């Protein structure tokens, strides 16, 4: 079970304006074998709402939207739906649908785009 301290660390990394914070979340959070850590990390990356952070959770196999754990994937989808400004998300989803080489990732991006446009 994830500790409150780790949740707080992830939250502080989410609010940080330092580009290095995205790197820490990617290297330590999304690579963690713990589902909860990946779930919190994916939400933090979505809430940062930058091109770099969104690319990690939308375009990479096994991370965020494409995570093997449905809890992590659903958590990422909910965080994206909660975003006020979805401009960057839509841009990345369009790029993913057009350019990504993995069919499963393109399908997930298409489904999420449909969900947002509903």
């Amino acid at each position, binding site marked *: *079970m*994830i*500790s*409150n*301290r*780790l949740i*707080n*660390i*992830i*939250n*502080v*990394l989410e*609010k*940080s304006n*330092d580009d*290095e*914070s995205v790197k*820490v979340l990617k290297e*330590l*959070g999304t690579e*963690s*074998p*713990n*589902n909860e*850590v990946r779930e919190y990390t994916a939400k933090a990356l979505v809430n940062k709402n930058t091109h770099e952070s969104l690319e990690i959770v939308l375009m990479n196999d096994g991370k965020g939207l494409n995570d093997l754990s449905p809890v992590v994937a659903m958590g990422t989808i909910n965080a994206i739906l909660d975003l006020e400004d979805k401009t960057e998300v839509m841009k990345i989803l369009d790029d993913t649908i057009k350019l990504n080489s993995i069919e499963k990732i393109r399908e997930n991006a298409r489904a999420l785009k449909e969900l947002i446009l509903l």
Partner: protein
Amino acid sequence: MNILKIGGIGKTHTNNVNSGVSTNPFAAVNFRGNVLPFGDVFVGTAKKVGLGEKIQNKIKMISGSVLGNVSDLGKRVYEPVKSFAGRIREDLVLAWDKTVGRTMEVKDLLAEKTKSLFKGKDYVAENTPVPELRKMFEQELENMGGLSV
């Protein structure tokens, strides 16, 4: 014709002049080409400037130049006063900014301390540097058992 011989009046006149017993104070003054012994009695048409007046003139001249200098001095003094006032104002603004900044720092510090008191050991300050957050993150993953799911 000799007047003296005609009548006594002329004779009497001559006696009065030569006797030296006249009560007239100007009787001894000779107006006929001689130098008057009381020259300072008469005031000449060309006004002579006395030493006192010269000093007065000098004083007037000096005071005039002093007045001129004083009026210049006013201008010269005004500029430094103006710049001094400007500098003081800038210093005050700077001091005010510093004070407010320091107050804000203390306020933030107190807020952070208060938060940490209420949230205990799990609290992580928002201004913690990212490298330190990385170490803390790694430590927490280690505490969780590393690869445990």
